[in-house]
């Protein structure tokens, strides 16, 4: 099984990076952390833009750095999307798109440029100079430009952070499509949970130049021992698929490993994969399923852990519903009155669900 192996040790002025990571060779890995956590520096080391003193970087069988060997950036088969689009101002959009393609593949294929431009909705901009484009358009050109080099690894450094929220919503669907269509692995740096929830398959949590956690998104989000669970907006993300549209009640039924979720009806194909985000504070716990309730999204679950929350009145409950990890935040008083204990079977009741699409 191919994979990404990163071991990087380097002391920068006032900051040291010490990372040893094994990441999946497919899908989107989000490097998540506050500014100064070293996530961007790690990404730059992978690209060879930063030269770590001691590092071994291997991506799906290609070793780019190890003791006594350092492949310069321009010989690494990567695509890199910077925070600001950084288009070449002296070239038009077509020139920018062709720049990397020509050097990586030896030819400029107009049909491929047009196909890629169409994919990112920038076909009508090919003759324009970058300073005539909006921030969102520029970033879409930058992503298309990186992909046209046919990279083996796509690196994205907070590609949405320089954009206002309307522009972000304009680009996120393109990124989600990339996530579904791309064959190559993606390393995506962000400090926005919304982006991580929408795009990540694998989540790496970083702080002060160290890796605090690395694992599949759902598992990592629901871990009680990580600061993520303490966040006011702590949540889990569930992968589900569209099972049925109920025209009578105007609902769409989603199916996942732990049961079924009803959401307001959406125009989605039956069988389409969707992501659902559930905040920890929107899950309550009941002992039985018999009591009538307006809450209809409820899953038979098992308690996997109980931990104190930062707010002394509350506690965090780790749950599993059919193998899918969930996270609930309830008052300590409620936990005590229900007599909750690890291993106990309970019902997780979900008050609100956000469909990420």
């Amino acid at each position, binding site marked *: 099984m191919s994979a990404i192996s990163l071991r990087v040790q380097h002391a920068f002025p006032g900051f040291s990076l010490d990372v040893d990571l094994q990441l999946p060779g497919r899908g989107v890995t989000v490097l998540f952390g506050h500014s100064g956590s070293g996530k961007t520096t790690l990404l730059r080391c992978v690209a060879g*833009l930063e030269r770590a003193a001691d590092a071994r970087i291997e991506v799906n069988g290609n070793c780019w750095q190890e003791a006594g060997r350092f492949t310069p950036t*321009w010989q690494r088969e990567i695509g890199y999307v*910077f925070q600001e689009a950084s288009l070449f*101002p002296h070239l038009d959009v077509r020139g920018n798109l062709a720049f*990397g393609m020509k050097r990586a593949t030896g030819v400029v294929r107009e049909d491929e440029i047009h196909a890629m431009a169409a994919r990112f909705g920038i076909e009508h901009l090919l003759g324009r100079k970058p300073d005539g484009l909006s921030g969102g358009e520029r970033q879409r050109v930058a992503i298309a430009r990186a992909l046209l*080099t046919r990279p083996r690894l796509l690196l994205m450094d907070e590609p949405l952070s320089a954009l206002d929220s309307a522009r972000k919503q304009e680009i996120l669907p393109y990124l989600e499509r990339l996530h579904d269509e791309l064959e190559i692995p993606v390393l995506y740096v962000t400090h926005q949970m919304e982006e991580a929830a929408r795009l990540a398959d694998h989540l790496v949590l970083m702080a002060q130049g160290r890796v605090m956690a690395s694992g599949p998104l759902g598992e990592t989000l629901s871990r009680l021992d990580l600061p993520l669970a303490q966040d006011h907006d702590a949540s889990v993300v569930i992968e589900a698929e569209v099972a049925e549209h109920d025209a009578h009640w105007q609902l769409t039924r989603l199916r996942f490993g732990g049961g079924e979720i009803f959401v307001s009806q959406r125009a989605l194909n039956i069988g389409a994969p969707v992501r659902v985000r559930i905040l920890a504070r929107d899950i309550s716990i009941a002992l039985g399923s018999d009591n009538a309730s307006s809450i209809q999204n409820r899953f038979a679950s098992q308690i996997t852990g109980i931990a104190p929350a930062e707010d002394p009145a509350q506690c965090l409950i780790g749950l599993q519903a059919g193998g899918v990890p969930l996270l609930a935040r309830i008052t300590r008083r409620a936990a005590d009155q229900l007599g909750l204990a690890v291993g106990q079977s309970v019902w997780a009741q979900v008050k609100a669900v956000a469909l990420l699409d």
Partner: protein
Amino acid sequence: MLLPDSQDWSAIWLTLRLATTVTALLLIIGTPIAWWLARTQSRLRGAISALVSLPLVLPPTVLGFYLLLLMGPNGPVGQLTQALGIGLLPFTFAGLVVASTFYSLPFVVQPIQNAIEAIGPRPLEVAATLRASPRDTFWSVVVPLARPGFLTAAVLGFAHTVGEFGVVLMIGGNIPGATRVISVQIYDHVEALEYAQAHWLSAGMVAFSFVVLLLLYSLNPDARRKPA
């Protein structure tokens, strides 16, 4: 009214030949120096900057004096050129080229250095992630983005070489057709009280300088803000 004579024309032709040669040499030598100064974090940066800028403050006679010693029969450069069979450089066209190159170096290095610093490291990083080698990046990204800087550098290097006098006298003397450039020719006319001919050449220089600077400022609005 006296018109310019053949000696005047010869001085004009020689001056243009000198300035063109020196400008070409300066772009070749000045660009790597400017690149290094713009990008390096070496502690030598300050010292090299100061060295390159010396001609801005030194009297041309001082520079000419030391170049004369270096290139003379007993100087290390002189001994080298003799050993190579080139002969001695002082009082030749080649000697003038060498001296002028040193003298005009800061006028070429500084605009290019400013332009490269203004580009910043990001476009170079982007080019590297798009598989451009450093040499490729220089020609396909740095040169087009720094073009106003190169243009300013070339114009200033050319104009400054046309306008020099002290260094030429020290190194080249006053040999018609070999080292007698316009500024020296004007000096000779004035010495000989040939004011009419001195006027022709002087007014020509004023007009030339004005046109050059006008071109520079209208082609390249940035140059107005940057001290050369």
